[in-house]
């Protein structure tokens, strides 16, 4: 069943088209990511699902029911806010139990449910504290518990990991993923971090300028970017101009070439070969990033740390499989 359906949905603020004629179908139980730079319309889409915004055009359905004109408090959809939005004047337990309280669930029952939810996010016994006494990571978990205790049909997450440091973020990514598997709830996740989207989502919608540029599995989006924007935004691929691609013997079209698909030095038979000059190199730990100029076109290469690299200014040979050269739509 389709959990969230957008048909030609637009949200314009005056002349600004925050969301512009978006079509979208999120399946039940799916972990769906909306990826894009700030101002691309992904957060507005999330707010349209939550009911904080109403579409200026188009049709929205949540589990087959019309959602436009329905206020947020009548939707079985819950949100984990970017900065958590915990109620500062309530204890952690009252924060988590809030949704049940306003729906008239009895005191004892909601206390138990809230404690279970806190245990689920690994914060048992934190109920008596105030939000101000918790760390960012703990607040994040409380926000999650507060949403999940309502057993929503769809859980919306607005850049929930943005404020956490790297280590905590990676840990939360895994926990979110396994939580979603256990609960089977549809998760819709907004992020500007392509790594996060690729590692967590079942499917990704890449947004730019209020439109979906590409919708597909992480592999599709990464390996076969449909537009230059997607190639550039997801995985920082090399985008090669049509003239360059034509010289390689392919069509007169833009093409993307992933940095890790290129090896330094002459490869085996049937590989395409380019000659250029090393412009700069930076050590990243597991790999080196090498910037090479080929007749003025700059190409990024991700080379294993074990491979030797010519010094800056020296000539270098690049090789890659023809199959890794991915031709893109002419548009954008």
């Amino acid at each position, binding site marked *: 069943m389709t959990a969230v359906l957008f048909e030609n949905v637009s949200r314009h603020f005056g002349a600004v088209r925050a969301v512009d004629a978006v079509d979208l179908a999120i399946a039940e139980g799916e972990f769906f990511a909306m990826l894009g730079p700030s101002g691309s319309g992904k957060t507005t889409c999330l707010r349209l699902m939550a009911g904080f915004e109403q579409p200026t055009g188009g049709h929205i359905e949540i589990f087959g029911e019309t959602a436009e004109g329905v206020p947020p*408090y009548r939707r079985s959809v819950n949100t984990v*806010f970017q900065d958590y939005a915990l109620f500062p*004047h309530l204890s952690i337990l009252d924060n988590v139990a809030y*949704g049940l309280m306003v729906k008239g669930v009895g005191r004892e029952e909601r206390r138990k449910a809230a404690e279970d939810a806190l245990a689920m996010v690994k914060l048992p016994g934190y109920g008596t504290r105030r939000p101000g006494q918790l760390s960012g990571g703990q607040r994040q978990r409380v926000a999650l518990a507060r949403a999940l205790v309502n057993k929503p049909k769809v859980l919306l997450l607005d850049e929930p990991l943005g404020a956490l440091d790297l280590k905590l973020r990676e840990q939360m990514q895994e926990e979110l993923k396994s939580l979603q598997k256990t609960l089977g709830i549809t998760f819709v996740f907004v992020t500007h971090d392509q790594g996060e989207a690729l590692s967590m989502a079942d499917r990704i919608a890449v947004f730019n300028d209020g439109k979906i540029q590409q919708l597909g599995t992480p592999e599709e989006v990464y390996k076969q970017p449909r537009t230059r924007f997607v190639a550039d935004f997801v995985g920082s691929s090399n985008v090669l101009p049509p003239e360059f691609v034509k010289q390689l013997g392919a069509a007169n079209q833009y093409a993307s070439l992933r940095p890790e698909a290129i090896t330094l030095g002459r490869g085996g038979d049937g590989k395409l070969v380019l000659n250029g000059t090393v412009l700069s190199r930076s050590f990243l730990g597991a790999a080196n990033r090498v910037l090479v100029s080929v007749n003025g076109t700059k190409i990024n290469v991700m080379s294993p740390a074990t491979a030797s690299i010519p010094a800056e200014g020296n000539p270098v040979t690049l090789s890659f499989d023809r199959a890794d050269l991915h031709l893109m739509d002419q548009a954008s």
Partner: protein
Amino acid sequence: MSAIVEQRSILPDRGSLTSRVSDFLWKHPYVLLTILLAPPLLWLGIIYLGSLFALLLQSFFSIDDYSGLINYEFTLATYRQLLNEANFDIIVRTVSMAAIVTLVSAVIAFPIAYYAARYARGKWKVFFYLGVMLPLWSSYLVKIYAWKLILAKEGILTWLLTKLNLLWLLDAWLSLPVIGGNSLSVSYTGTFIVFVYVWMPFMILPIQAALERVPTNLIEASSDLGATPQQTFRHVLFPLALPGIVAGSIFTFSLTLGDYIIPQIIGSSRLFIGQAVYAQQGTAGNIPLAAAFTVVPIVIMGLYLWGARRMGAFDAL
């Protein structure tokens, strides 16, 4: 490299007196703090608290009924006098008025403050501040006399209601016991209207400041979790605005408790605490009773703040 600026890692002392003073104060921050705070603290400590203490002391003396001289012996007789029927009526009248003025001010101020905090932007915000503060810039007496003209029997309000064929409404109101009277300008209703008008800015501004600090996403989160707007108001907006409402009510409540001009110009001739203090220390020359009357608002405000604190009004601070 510039020829004008000498390239050194530690810049030399500029040699002037001000720079040496700056260096000294930078090394001894407490000296600056002391210089800045000592005068106001001395003022508060000696002039203000000192005279308050002297006043409190007076309330424990009594006046000799025959000679009219102050008897400097410790006694609670003056406080007992406060419980005389006439004096106690004054206290009840003033406290009730202050309570109703505060309550109604809060109810009227909240939507105005909410609009200003949530929706007013740019020039509308300027307009809001001007609208709220402008009345404070004109003389308090002028405003009260203006209200007397508005509320008088021959005043503009009566004229307007006559034109609207609604005069019977005013007459019905004025025929009510206690709150009614010959005209609005000589009734408790009139006193109440003017109190609410004059203190309104002191209620609006703290509430607006409190509401401004409530992040929009808390309102959204509440709605997202299933709370109707009514529930969001009750469980999120109101508790978070409460410190502002309490701050505003401290102003309206204490200002009403102490004011002696408004009830003198507009209202029935029955006294309020401020008028009683004025009369006792002036014409009657009964400083101890005037002092005892002054203690009443202090005690009431103390109780009020203690109660507000116990009810959790300051939890969101």
